[in-house]
């Protein structure tokens, strides 16, 4: 083994050192010959004779040089080069075959690579931090009673709990971070134009605790957190896009929420914050200014620093060395359950105690189960597609190589070894796979981006080395399969076959036919599975697209507005009231209103506690009466196109000084008042305080997103609410809402040049985005289904037409003996229909199993939807008929005399 390796290395070296080495060898031989000649001369021969004798004695110089060359650089390389040339010629000779194979591979492997790379990035990629295996996301199960939060309840902690926890938990580091707002973004300004950038307020140990380095300057220190210093670290991306990678960025000022922050560092390239969804542009230390309250909430009663009941800070922790995660968790659990109640009156009897849990520091905090499931389903689907694609190529190769049987036989007969033929087949498949692989990789790069867009993930999706290895492994496997599958058939024929006549020799053996049949049946079965899946998901898609929204989002423009310097309720009412009046004057604007939570964005206020006219609402305990709420502006329902069933819409007259009003939806009226005639009744909180008069009942409509279930809901106007420091402007305009955007921008710039429009978009787009994942999933799955069907039909067509061609002689005999055209066609069709039927019989149970797996992704379609199954069965039957119909027709028109004479 060692020797072989040494020889190989020596040969490899020789390959590259060829020319000088060759010259040296020639010299050596020359010297030898001269010395030999001299010797003969000294024995008495004359010069010429001596030379001849020397040559005779030395042997064939040319042969020696040749042998030496072969030995030196190994036949392997020159043979491979020859095989490659031959392979290329073969592929060029059959361009359609080559193109089909390459495209099939590209689609199969490319789709797999793309889905795998997204799955890898989302499910397994770790944060780019030092020793990520010891870093965890900290989650909790419950909030203590009396606490509230902005974001997800299981990732939020109070600042007080965080401080204490950090000191006493025994964890090496406890790192806190708070997004700038519910969207994660905040207004910033580098030059003249205000814009939004994503940022986190973080603890002083954020960079040091995570072990994230800097490109320039420094990370934060504890003093930055303690002093709430006005310093910021920006991301490498932001540095590149806004400061052109300038090294003197350190010390420059970045305006965040109109406050000047000094840039002290640029984070290491590739680090874009935690949790992954949006890549962060900047980090600032925890701030104390009310304008920098957690999640951009108005600081009416205090900030996150002063309100222990406000759970808002997210935590990461580093497990100390030498301690297992379980031990660390057990210790932290005890401490946490004490500090959780800091600043909260007292633990109530029977209250569920919050439980900590640790999650690995993956790029994406692994919470979105359904998303992971969708990805796994997609992976399974593209895996099937790849399998089908590979089956197809194998069948195509077999069919092609069967036509080359004679070529192989002749080669065997004239002395080629089986090894040579194997090597040549492998070389050809390697060529195919290389071509397909390169195309696949290009395709995958694009597809990954598209998938990223689907998942609404901006960062770190580029295929990395793991993905590359995955793809290479798939390709290597394909190369082997493609090379070896046709091999047995190719060499089993043996040299004697070349001598037989073509027709008898080319009779397909029973075993080959059976293998082919199995492949066809399996393909049909897989086709059924994929078609059923695609049909179910397409049904889901159709249902999703056709859900009535209960409103007319078309023609409505929405954008967020966050005035920076509003400190009181009065200022807020004055600002937004004025804004509404001014926006109404823009030509083409039909109605303007506000919404605190943007409809369709997924955000909602959920409340509980309600009395109707001071009593229990319709038999429900006042505390148990849950409802959703949104704060809106006057004209809201007219602007949004929601029908008012009873009473009226909000108007400018519902001012801060007017009697408080509320509008409810149908479901609310039915559930809590027992009737739709709710106007005139009075709602109050569970203690009977803060009474509000119901002035209208509106038709049920969608609030958080397209797929939500209708719930009891009510609306109040911002003029009669607490301080609102951010509202969404809803604007009904004539024509395309986005066309109005530039006008609105100019308009807003005049009002306040530091105030960017927050996420401006068409309102219909907001709703569409709320189901974009499902839509994309359904579309992708549909695409893969169709792709599979296309692959299968080309595969079936290829195989069946090849089979018919091989039976030409037999068909000729049959016709000569009096078979009708009809009978011949039927004979061919019957064969493939039979195979299809067997495939369907196997495919249907498999499809039932598979559709159970995607049940959770379905909307309004049952997993056992009969129509989808019928569609799938009809689909494969049509494909099979089409694929065999053409060759069958051809078979029917075989001219018996030609067919027979061909032999």
């Amino acid at each position, binding site marked *: 083994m060692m*020797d072989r390796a040494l020889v190989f290395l020596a040969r490899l070296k020789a390959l590259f050192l060829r020319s000088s080495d060759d010259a040296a*060898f020639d010299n050596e031989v020359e*010297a*030898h010959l001269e*010395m030999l000649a001299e010797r003969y001369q000294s024995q008495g021969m004359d010069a010429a004779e001596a030379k001849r004798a020397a040559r005779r004695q030395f042997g064939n*110089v040319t042969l020696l040089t040749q042998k*030496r060359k072969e030995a*030196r650089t190994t036949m392997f390389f020159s043979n491979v080069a020859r095989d490659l040339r031959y392979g290329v010629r073969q592929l060029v000779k059959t361009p359609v075959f080559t193109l089909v194979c390459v495209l099939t591979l590209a689609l199969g492997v490319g789709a797999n690579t793309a889905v795998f790379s997204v799955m890898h990035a989302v499910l397994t990629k770790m944060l780019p931090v030092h020793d990520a295996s010891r870093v965890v996301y900290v989650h909790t199960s419950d909030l203590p009673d009396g606490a509230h939060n902005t974001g997800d309840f299981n990732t939020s902690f109070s600042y007080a709990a965080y401080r204490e926890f950090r000191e006493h938990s025994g964890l090496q580091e406890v790192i806190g971070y708070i997004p700038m707002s519910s969207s994660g973004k905040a207004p910033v300004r580098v030059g003249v134009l205000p814009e939004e950038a994503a940022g986190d307020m973080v603890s002083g140990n954020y960079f040091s605790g995570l072990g994230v380095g800097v490109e320039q300057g420094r990370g934060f220190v504890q003093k930055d957190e303690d002093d709430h210093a006005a310093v910021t670290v920006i991301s490498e991306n932001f540095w590149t896009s806004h400061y052109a990678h300038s090294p003197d960025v350190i010390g420059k000022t970045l305006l965040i929420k109109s406050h000047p922050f000094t840039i002290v560092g640029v984070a290491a390239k590739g680090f874009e914050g935690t949790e992954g969804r949006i890549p962060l542009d900047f980090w600032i230390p925890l701030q104390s200014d009310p304008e920098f309250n957690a999640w951009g909430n108005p600081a009416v009663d205090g900030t996150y620093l002063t309100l222990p009941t406000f759970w808002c800070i997210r935590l990461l922790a580093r497990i100390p060395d030498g301690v297992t995660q379980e031990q660390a968790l057990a210790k932290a659990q005890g401490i946490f359950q004490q500090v959780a109640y800091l600043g909260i009156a007292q633990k109530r009897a029977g209250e569920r105690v919050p439980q900590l849990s640790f999650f690995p520091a993956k790029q994406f905090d692994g919470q979105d189960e359904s998303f992971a499931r969708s990805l796994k389903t997609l992976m399974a689907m593209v895996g099937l597609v790849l399998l089908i694609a590979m089956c197809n190529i194998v069948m195509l190769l077999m069919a092609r190589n069967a036509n080359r049987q004679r070529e192989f036989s002749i080669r065997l007969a004239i002395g080629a070894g089986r090894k040579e033929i194997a090597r040549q087949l492998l070389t050809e498949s390697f060529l195919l796979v290389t071509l397909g692989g390169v195309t696949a990789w290009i395709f995958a790069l694009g597809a990954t981006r598209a998938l990223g867009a689907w998942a609404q993930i901006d960062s770190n999706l580029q295929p990395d080395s793991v993905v590359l290895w995955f793809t290479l492994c798939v390709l290597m496997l394909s190369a082997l399969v493609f090379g070896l599958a046709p091999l047995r058939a190719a060499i089993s024929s043996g040299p004697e076959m070349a001598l037989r006549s073509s027709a008898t020799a080319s009779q397909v053996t029973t075993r080959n036919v059976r293998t082919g049949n199995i492949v066809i049946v399996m393909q049909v079965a897989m086709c059924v599975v994929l078609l059923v899946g695609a049909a179910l998901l397409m049904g889901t898609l159709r249902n999703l697209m056709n859900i009535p929204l209960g409103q007319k989002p078309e023609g409505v423009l929405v954008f967020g507005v966050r005035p920076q310097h509003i400190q009181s309720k009065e200022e807020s009412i004055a600002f937004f009231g004025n804004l509404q009046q001014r926006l109404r004057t823009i030509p083409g604007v039909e109605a303007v209103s506000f919404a605190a939570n943007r409809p369709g964005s997924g955000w909602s206020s959920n409340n509980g506690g309600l009395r109707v006219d001071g009593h229990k609402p319709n038999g429900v305990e006042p505390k148990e009466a849950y409802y959703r709420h949104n704060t809106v502006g006057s004209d809201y329902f007219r602007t949004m196109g929601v029908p008012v069933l009873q009473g009226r819409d909000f108007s400018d007259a519902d001012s801060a000084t007017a009697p408080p009003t509320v509008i409810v939806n149908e479901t609310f009226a039915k559930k809590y008042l027992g009737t739709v005639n709710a106007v005139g009744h009075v709602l109050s909180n569970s203690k009977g305080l803060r009474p509000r008069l119901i002035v209208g009942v509106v038709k049920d409509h969608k609030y958080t997103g397209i797929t939500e279930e209708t719930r009891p809901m009510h609306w109040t106007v911002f003029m009669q609410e607490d301080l609102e420091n951010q509202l969404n402007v809803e604007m009904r305009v004539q024509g395309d809402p986005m066309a109005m955007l530039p006008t609105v921008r100019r308009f807003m710039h005049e009002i306040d040049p530091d105030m960017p429009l927050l996420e401006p978009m068409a309102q219909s787009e907001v709703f569409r985005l709320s189901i974009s994942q499902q839509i994309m999933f359904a579309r992708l799955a549909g695409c893969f289904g169709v792709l599979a069907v296309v692959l299968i039909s080309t595969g079936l067509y290829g195989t069946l037409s090849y089979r018919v061609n091989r039976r030409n002689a037999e068909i000729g005999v049959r016709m000569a003996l009096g078979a009708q055209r009809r009978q011949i066609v039927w004979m061919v069709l019957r064969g493939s229909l039979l195979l299809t039927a067997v495939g369907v019989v196997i495919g249907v149970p498999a499809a039932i199993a598979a559709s159970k797996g995607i049940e959770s992704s379905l909307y309004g379609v049952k997993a056992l939807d009969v129509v989808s199954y019928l569609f799938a069965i009809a689909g494969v039957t049509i494909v099979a008929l089409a694929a065999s119909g053409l060759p069958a027709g051809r078979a029917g028109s075989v001219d018996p005399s030609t067919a027979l004479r061909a032999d």
Partner: protein
Amino acid sequence: MAADKSEVLQGTLDLMILKTLHALGPLHGFGIARRIEQLSDDVLTLNEGTVYTSLLRLQQKSWIASEWGVSENNRRARFYRITKRGLKQLAIETENWERISGVIGRVLALETKVEP
């Protein structure tokens, strides 16, 4: 070709070259060829070129090494010498050869059974 001359037995050329280099120290190809010819008392017909094929093979296996030098009659020539690895191999192959030739010798020494 004279009947009393025989071809070099397959695989033995390598062994002979190794042994020659081991016994005589660094030699050029011509020298090796001469030495083997001498030793064989002209029994072996040696295509001297085959020496080079063998030298190349041995060199690729790192059993011998080579460097350029000047021959006794002032010619530039490549000198081959045996390496440590080559020494080990020589020992192994010598033992092998002795064992095999022993076996062959014993077989050939069998007395012919005379048929009655």
